[in-house]
């Protein structure tokens, strides 16, 4: 089976194109878009790790190493598409249009972090693993029923493939031919559990055969493969040709979360041979004459500023309101809930 699903790669580790035909599709604007977003979310990610270390936000799951997968896929979407991320996909969310202040807020235990900008169809990050797959099938089905050509993309990890909802979500998408892209980031670990203890198959792509869903296995650290293969899947979905499963093979360079110690379970030199996606893109940019030091320095400064401003925005954000504990559970809160709220607020006032 592994041979049936070779890892597609457009660019190699050294930043050389393996298929020259892509040369013309890669204009400066696009390449800089990739680079910009990858640097931007990397900066966000590093800042978040630091904030966590300083106790300024809560436990945080870094996505370092997975930037190509997240940016490449998110850039392949249109503005009216739907995104169903996990807790590790705020890179994709930011690229697709999530607000950065709110993203920081999310990791600071603030429910405000789940609210997408108006008009942006971004679901809250799914915390219970794989539960978001059926949602993505449903939202896409709704688009199909309405006769639009919008699609949904849903992110999930290698570990998520073991849950029943993975299976039920793919089956619904397949039966109802919903325009859904099942985007797997196979980073080879689910917390401490390695791929080969998670499943006995060598690929995730082959699991799509169970549903007659087309699938493809790609180098998830090659932003070009990710982008163009996601584009293809999106186009098929828009054309009414149903769902696709994409297995993006990648690697999280850091810990599962800031509360995790990967040296406990990952062999020391595992992953050392993997060229992380930003380095790879930089090599490409240098190889193919896209590198403009001045522009890039400026870009990075802008990013730094944006991220710093977002941190400030997070920290200056109005304090969490106790009312919010009660006010959003129901459209019309039951009287007894109203009473619980009133009693508690009264107590706080008296204190």
């Amino acid at each position, binding site marked *: 089976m592994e041979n049936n699903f070779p890892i597609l790669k457009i660019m190699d580790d050294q930043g050389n194109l393996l298929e020259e035909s892509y040369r013309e599709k890669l204009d400066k604007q696009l390449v800089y878009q990739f680079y910009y977003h990858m640097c931007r979310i990397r900066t966000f990610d590093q800042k978040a790790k630091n904030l966590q270390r300083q106790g300024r936000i809560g436990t945080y799951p870094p996505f370092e190493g997975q930037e190509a997968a997240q940016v490449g896929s998110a850039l392949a979407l249109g503005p009216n598409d739907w995104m169903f991320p996990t807790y590790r996909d705020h890179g994709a969310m930011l690229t697709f249009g999530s607000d950065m202040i709110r993203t920081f807020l999310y990791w600071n235990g603030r*429910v405000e972090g789940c609210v*997408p900008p108006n008009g942006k169809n971004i679901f809250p990050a799914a915390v219970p693993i794989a539960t978001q797959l*059926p949602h993505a099938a449903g939202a896409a089905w709704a688009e199909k029923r309405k006769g639009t050509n919008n699609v949904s993309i849903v992110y999930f990890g290698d570990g998520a493939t073991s849950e029943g909802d993975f299976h039920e979500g793919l089956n619904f998408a397949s039966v109802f031919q919903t325009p859904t892209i099942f985007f797997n980031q196979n980073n080879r670990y689910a917390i401490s559990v390695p791929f080969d203890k998670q499943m006995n198959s060598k690929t995730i792509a082959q699991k799509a055969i169970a549903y007659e869903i087309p699938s493809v296995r790609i180098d998830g650290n090659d932003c070009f493969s990710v982008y163009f293969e996601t584009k293809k899947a999106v186009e098929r979905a828009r054309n009414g040709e149903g769902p696709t499963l994409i297995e993006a093979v990648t690697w999280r360079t850091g810990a599962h979360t800031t509360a995790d110690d990967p040296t406990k379970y990952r062999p020391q030199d595992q992953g050392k041979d993997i060229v992380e996606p930003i380095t790879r893109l930089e090599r490409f940019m240098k190889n193919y004459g896209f590198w403009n030091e001045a522009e890039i320095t400026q870009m990075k400064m802008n990013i730094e500023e944006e991220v710093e401003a977002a941190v400030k925005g997070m920290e200056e954000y109005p304090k969490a309101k106790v009312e919010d504990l009660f006010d959003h559970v129901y459209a019309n809160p039951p009287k007894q809930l109203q009473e619980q709220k009133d009693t508690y607020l009264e107590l706080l006032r008296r204190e």
Partner: protein
Amino acid sequence: MATQVKKTPQQNAVTEKMTLIQAINDGMKTVLENDQMTLILGEDVGKNGGVFRATDGLQEQFGEDRVVDTPLSESGIIGTSVGLAVNGFKPIAEIQFMGFIYPAYDQIMTHVSRLRMKTMGHFSVPMVIRAPYGAGVRAPEVHSDSAEVLFTHMPGLKVVCPATPHDAKGLLIAAVEDPDPVLYLEPMRSYRSTKEEVPVDSYSIEIGKGNIRKEGNDVTVIAWGAMIPTVEKAVQQIERNGVSCEVIDLRTLYPLDRNIIAESVQKTGRAVVVHEAHATSGLGNDIVSVINDTSFLYLKAPIERVTGFDVPVPFFALEEHYLPTPKRVQIAIEKVVHF
């Protein structure tokens, strides 16, 4: 049985005699007609019209696109409905029997009930989950569960359970119109047990409001769904001995109509709660708490609960022993009255 049903504005409307399940069917027909965004999903709801015929004729009338046979996959049904609901549709998802809702428990617990909270109202999940519940129809194992407490304990959801055809249609329409997700429990055993005049037009029964089925002075008997006929049998019997019973049909299990309970118990000073779910952590305990909280000084006797025992609903040869019987209800009433 002579009961005093609270007047509803529809009482002068054109009516038709319907069973409870016909009223449910009629309710769904009404909402499918009135709102293009409603749709029905479930196992066997299409051509087959549901294993109990609740959706009979609906696919024929509204098409395969609005009355959809799904794969055998409860988590898939509810999970997909979440996606449909946030994206403009109003799914009415059928779970074939309440005992088969458990595979979807995660979806209901972590998404259906929480999505509005999680997004501060940006997304909401206006959907209805229908599930026949309860014992007494000689069904196989697991088909007879009565697990309402797993959902009344779940903030973000509402839970209703009609006992009569009239309430069945009105509560169904109310559930569909409600902006919050509603679990709509159907007393299987009452599906075809009686007929009642039901308005043919659309009407709704307010969620959160119980109904005094019968006024009385000596004791308040609280129940819902399939236990209402059991209670009424017991009450008929016991009133011959000169005990006057007030019978409350809760109709909504969350949020509880605390006022109707409190007012009645403050009048009678005595209460018996009847339900078919297990005693331990059953909803009867909530009602005991409501009375404790609101009517402590009025109570003349400990509250009695008559419930299914703390054993799994048994295979059907013994189900009548599992279920509260009129006799057990009667004994409980006598006990509180003669305390």
